[in-house]
């Protein structure tokens, strides 16, 4: 009975169905929905974004203005946004590379108990959205003497700080928020890499009488190099794309632009001021920065592979 039905359907199947099922065609059918969505939702907007950056876009009136948007971009506010973002990137990358390496090595050591508990609690902050996390920070670092951060300062005999209204403390808040959320995730990257270090190497180093620091420097670190390059790259890229960590503390505008970032500037100019051509020009500059960083990473990892063989 089953066999009969199978033969029946086989006979009915047109040559078109056979065509659809041939191994030459099937992969393209599998790939096509993605290609379609990619062309419409990524490729087209990317090209459009570049074109827009050369246009002045007013409702019902679009004109090509050449490089005018780019000439306008290089103004003091943009430099402020770029320097804020760069400082933020340098700080978060440094902290989010060094601290996770140290903590991962500690977590990996055979002396530590309750590993799963430690790992889970360090990972927990990554589950909260930046908005919820930022809300907690904003309420903890309030201006009043009654907010947690100032209470601690007062107990230590120090003056209260207007956290959201100084350049240094504003930067501190954004960096802390980012570090708090991503520490646990970065630890996991390094923990995974540490599993690749052969135990014999440590034993050999022990026999040679190497100190803990020497073992770290000559045995552990070389094995962490690929994952470190990876973590540094994604941290730089995510840092340059930063927006929410600033928005959650100051919404659209911070005093003297102490919290303005490159993406924040795109949002401010492109969406709030509705100056889309100008916003697109900032976006293109951001894309160039990110491409350069990705390119450097490719060189570094490629060079590493060649040196390894």
């Amino acid at each position: 009975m089953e066999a009969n039905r199978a033969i029946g359907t086989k006979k009915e199947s047109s040559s078109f169905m056979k065509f659809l099922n041939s191994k030459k065609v099937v992969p393209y059918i599998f790939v096509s929905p993605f290609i379609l969505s990619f062309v419409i939702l990524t490729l087209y907007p990317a090209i459009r974004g570049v074109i827009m950056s050369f246009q002045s876009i007013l409702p019902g009136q679009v004109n090509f203005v050449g490089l005018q948007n780019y000439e306008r971009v290089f103004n003091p506010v943009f430099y402020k946004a770029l320097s804020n973002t760069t400082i933020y990137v340098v700080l978060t990358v440094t902290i989010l590379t060094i601290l996770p390496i140290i903590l991962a090595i500690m977590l990996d050591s055979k002396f530590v108990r309750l590993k799963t508990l430690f790992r889970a609690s360090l990972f927990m902050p990554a589950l909260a959205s930046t908005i919820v996390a930022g809300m907690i920070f904003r309420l903890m670092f309030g201006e009043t003497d009654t907010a947690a951060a100032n209470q601690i300062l007062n107990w230590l005999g120090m003056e209260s700080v207007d956290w959201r209204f100084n350049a240094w403390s504003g930067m501190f808040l954004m960096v802390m928020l980012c570090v708090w959320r991503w520490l646990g995730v970065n630890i996991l990257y390094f923990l995974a890499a540490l599993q690749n270090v052969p135990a014999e190497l440590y034993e050999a180093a022990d026999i040679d009488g190497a100190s803990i620091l020497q073992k770290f420097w000559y045995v552990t670190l070389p094995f962490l190099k690929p994952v470190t390059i990876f973590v540094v790259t994604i941290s730089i890229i995510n840092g340059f794309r930063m927006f929410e960590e600033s928005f959650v503390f100051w919404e659209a505008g911070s005093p003297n632009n102490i919290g303005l970032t490159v993406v924040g500037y795109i949002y401010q100019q492109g969406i709030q001021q509705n100056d889309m051509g100008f916003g697109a020009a900032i976006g293109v500059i951001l894309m160039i920065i990110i491409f350069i960083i990705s390119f450097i990473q490719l060189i570094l990892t490629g060079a590493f592979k060649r040196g390894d063989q």
Partner: protein
Amino acid sequence: MKRSNNRTLLWFANIGLAVICLIALFPVIMLLISSLRPSSELMRTGISLAFDWSMLNLDNYLYIFTEANIYWSWYMNSVVISAITIVLSLFFSAMVGYALAVYDFKGRNLFFTFVVFILMVPFEILMLPLFQMMIRFQLVDSYVGVILPMVVAPIAVFFFRQYALGLPVQLMDAARIDGSTEYGIYFKIMLPLMAPSLGAMAILQGLGSWNNFLWPLIVLRSNDMFTLPIGLATLLTPYGNNYDVLIAGSVMTVIPIVILFIFFQRYFVAGLTVGGVKG
């Protein structure tokens, strides 16, 4: 000598880690405690270390469950948008990743290079043109408008391809001999085998969508269409008197994720450490 050295190390590592974990959990604990404080007090003092413990109560939660209808609209929007994003982005990218790994076809390598290349294009460059597109197709302030750009998930394609490279290809030949079509092989045999990777990517896409901020902020306009992060952010003004919804609402935004995390820890770890994309 050696032994005492190890012992100090043991204490140093354990205590150091315990302290850092406490610091990491401290804001979460403070959030939970503060959500039990009267909202007017909270607005006046901020999250505080010294407060009147006898004033703790469940009023904020009572208010959210009885009065704050708008909060539940946001919740609904977030749930629906996340669910659809997960289904669509997984459907699209799993097929591609699978095809790239299993079939040998012209343009395969070129296509894969392509996927890696899209990974580098930041969403921020796309957002103004996409917004223009949404205006033209009248998708501003709609679910479709929020979801569409999230459907293209190159990172998931990448992950599925890596996973599918390890699938047993012999099964495919066996199934072909049994008269199964290529689509039957994929949906009935191979896709179930890819379940662990689907789990990891569901978490990545789901959490990304649940916590997504910039794009929904741009494309959603009316209060009852907001997702949770956008809605909660509107309550953050110093003039607002909605701190009850803000603080208790925040707790209830995170709790479902924490519960999922406890049950599917493995998938969270796999999902969140792939490529390190921003959640």
